[in-house]
């Protein structure tokens, strides 16, 4: 049975496509966006996360680990990652959830069984399953198999992708995907490389090909004040949307800081430097107004405050 690496299955997802959905987050992403709020999604392989705030110093992990990766002195826990092979033994015995393996191998059937538990809510809301990440195209066989099963179950499907993959991969799931949530960050290629680690050439090319293939696409733009929420980017995005008349629209994804703290838990050093302040409602309303002024169909609605 085909399996893939999943790092979360989020029920009652109401912001990743129409209706009430279950979002399946796959592990592994070719981009390293500076603002990424799901850094645990970036590496393809499972990782051990340690949240010191939840540790009660019970010592269960010390006993479970065969590689002496956990040390306990004065009920204070220290983790030696150099010896860790992410076997998960320590996390299994960690009742408080301080230790957690991010990413688990799941079969297609296991994922679909969990997704189908919320079928009554999809039926009444027009919802379904969304595959997100990470980048689903990095696990194309698994993604395709999940979409195939979803189609058999007559579930509405969305795929959220950054588009940085070969067209051959993307092409495989076009017939199985009801709506692409296509992430696009920055129009300028060099600036894109600075912010995400890769150029946007392939992403743009795939977007145009996907559009030409008649796929339903919603362009989603993570908008970070002072980083990519710039006059140039707004103008370029407007131009891009005019080139793609079949787009369902553009959705701005205002930056938030929920990802802070995750880097340290994953052993990637000190807490990441905050890239920007979260935008205010007034700032978001201003963006919406500017896009509207350029004739762009935005799906965001102005705040009421």
């Amino acid at each position, binding site marked *: 049975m085909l399996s893939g690496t999943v790092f979360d299955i989020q029920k*009652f997802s109401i912001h990743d496509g129409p209706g009430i959905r279950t979002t399946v987050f796959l592990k592994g992403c070719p981009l390293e966006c500076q603002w990424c709020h799901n850094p645990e999604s970036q590496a393809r392989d499972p990782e051990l996360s340690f949240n010191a705030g*939840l540790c*009660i110093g019970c010592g269960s992990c010390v006993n479970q680990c065969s590689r002496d990766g956990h040390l306990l002195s004065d009920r204070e826990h220290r983790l030696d990652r150099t010896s860790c092979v992410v076997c998960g033994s320590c996390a299994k015995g960690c*009742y408080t959830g301080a230790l957690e393996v991010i990413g688990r191998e799941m079969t297609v059937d296991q994922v679909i069984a969990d997704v189908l538990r*919320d079928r*009554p*809510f999809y039926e*009444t809301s*027009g919802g379904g399953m969304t595959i997100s990440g990470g980048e689903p195209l990095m696990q194309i066989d698994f993604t395709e198999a999940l979409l195939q099963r979803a189609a058999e179950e007559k579930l509405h499907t969305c795929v959220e992708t950054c588009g940085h993959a070969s067209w051959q991969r993307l092409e495989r799931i076009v017939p199985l995907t009801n709506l692409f949530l296509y992430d696009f960050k920055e129009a300028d290629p060099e600036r894109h490389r600075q912010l995400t680690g890769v150029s946007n050439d392939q992403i743009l090319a795939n977007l145009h090909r996907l559009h030409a293939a008649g796929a339903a696409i919603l362009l989603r733009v993570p908008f970070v004040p002072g980083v990519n929420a710039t006059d140039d980017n707004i103008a370029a995005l407007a131009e891009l949307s005019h080139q793609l008349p079949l787009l369902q629209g553009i959705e701005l994804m205002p930056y938030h800081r929920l990802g802070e703290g995750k880097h340290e838990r994953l052993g990637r050093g000190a807490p990441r430097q905050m890239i920007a302040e979260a935008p205010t409602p007034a700032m978001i309303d201003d963006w919406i107004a500017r896009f509207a002024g350029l004739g762009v169909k935005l799906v965001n609605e102005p705040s009421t405050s």
Partner: protein
Amino acid sequence: MHLAEHPTRFALTSELRDMLEQSARRAASPPPQQRQDLQTHAFFELYAELPLRERQARSLAYAMVNEPVIVFPDDRLHGVFYGGGDPQLGGTGPWEAYCSVADGRRREAAENPEMLPFHDPGGSFIISTGAFPGHIAWNYHDVLEIGVDGLIERHRQALADTRDMVAAEYYRGVIILLEAVLTWNDRHVAALRELLSSARDPQARQRLTESIDLLERVPAQPARTFLEALQSFYFIWLAVMYEVPYGGNSPGRLDYFLWPYLQREYADGSLDREQVTHLLCELFIKIDERVHASDGHVNTIVVGGVAPDGSDAVNPLSWMMLDAFEALPLTHPAVYTRVSSRNPPEYLARCVDYLVNGGNRAQILADEAIITAMMQDHAMPFEDAAMYMCGGCMEIAPHGLNSDLLFAFLYNVPKTVELLVTGGTCLITGKPRLEMPGSLRDYPDFPAFYAACVDEIRRVLHAKFRTLDIYSETMAHWRPAFLQSSMTGDCLLRGRSQQDGGARYADYGGTPLGLQNAADALYAIKRAVFDDHICTADQLMAALTANFVGHDALRRRLLAIPKFGEGDPGAEAMMAQLLADLCHVFDSYTNRHGGRVKPIIFTFVWAPEMGRNLGASADGRLAGEPIGHGLTPQRLGSRRGLTTAIDASTQIPLHLVRGGASTMWDMDAASLRTDLLQAIVQAFINRGGQIFQGNTSDVAELERALLSPADYPNLIVRVGGFSARFINLNPQLQQEIVQRHRHLTR
């Protein structure tokens, strides 16, 4: 946002605003109650020599006809009285030898001593003492159809035909009381005539003349028009409430019963939607005035649903009653909605809109699930079950067919688990509370402990049910409720009052509280002590006794054990098993009239109060923390989101819950979308959920109201089966509502 600022489909006129203001002012300082004095004078002086039944009837009739009559010249509907106690229920002084509560207490002590240890010594509540009457509706539509004259005639005929002395006494009592209603009505006519004699303004004279004509027609004779039906309903409803002034006594299916009287005038245009809604507002203001400040009194109307033949019963009045109540900043008469797949889809949309914009007063009842539960084991035919209403909060019973011990007690189920763990010591008082066969350490395995738990639940409940039988007898004897019985099927046919075996259904009901807390505690015990060996029974008992102080590590491990509501098969199975076993305990008792005892699962105001009576529990909950609501996962069990929690709450055997299974889903106001909520409610119904309610207002607004209550006089919140003005609630309840889990948060 204040309730009054919500967009509504009906805008209050200045006339209605004035009426609201005057009604609230009058209700705030009502005239002194006279019933007790009048009835005492009549019972112990005027009629002391009469046989008991006639003495009871004449004494109450005397009080009623001598009740002060208050009429207001601008009103179109007439009749008012404020509150009033019933000395035949729990009277003091000379009444102690003639009232049902005192007699019930004496008899319980003598005949059911097994119940006595469960009485609360203070701070250690297991189950309530005594029995509360109320929580039913009666067949006022008989009066609309044949008038009080017609009802008297039916009872006269039955009296002439019977040779049963008990029945004859009953019929005589009914006739005495029905005649008293007419006399009291005549006094209103006289008072209106007196106003007319001094009125000069032609418009005022016109309205007074119309009122006199109206009251001269109804309720004595059949209603012919909508206004006559409204007055007839209101006056007879008020008269019965005078006799049985208990919480939860409700108008029930008012849209269903009034619609035939509006149909013609609505069709020919003599009354339009605006005019009808205006009249309904007047009616609702009148109903509210009697109990204005007592939000917990809960007189409830249920609109919509299906008719006894299974057809769609939504009619224009269903919509207009929602519009009227939505426009009024009141808590009575609460308007709840029954929904069925037979109803038009736009009606469900309206109900959900009411959930969002109805000022936290909506409650949606799912017909198919509720009727199925009522009909299980052939307990009643579809046509009776289809006529269900809420006796107050959600005490489910067929309208006008059940006797009035429908909500008779409450039971703190997790307290039983606590006492089984400790071996009978209350963790709040630290004192021995009950004799128990042993403590947790004495059970070899979890099945043995669980079996002891079910045995103890049976011991508590069956002792309580025997007490209810005693109280049913004392109530039948000391408070025959002639008027109410005259409008309860099949009292006329059987010649008995409703509590004396006259009612078609003599089901009692009671409320088991904190089932989710009990199930989570049991599952944690199973996992921690018996399956996973996280701790020993002694270690757990020590931690609970210390309220986890010094046992934080163990508490965190207990908190991490899955809870009901998170999609864990073990935790869900425990809740399902406990609910099924509890319902079987209820069903295993047949009461003195061959009826059942129904579990009615909701939480009313008791979440903090029951929590205060509970020590720390094995699920990691600290001593004193509130219990969960209805069958909704407790806060700890809401961590995997709304759909998973609803999935859990609807997978348990709800079809066994005959008396109503409520759930509470508080939503975050900022993220709430009507379309999303409609999808959620529809899925809840499709999955077999029974009752859906919840707050939709902003928590920040509640916090502002705590700081400056005077600015929020009409901020109404959903408490649990009923709604109340937030600033009138006690501080513990206010905090509980503020701190409840909010779904749909971003």
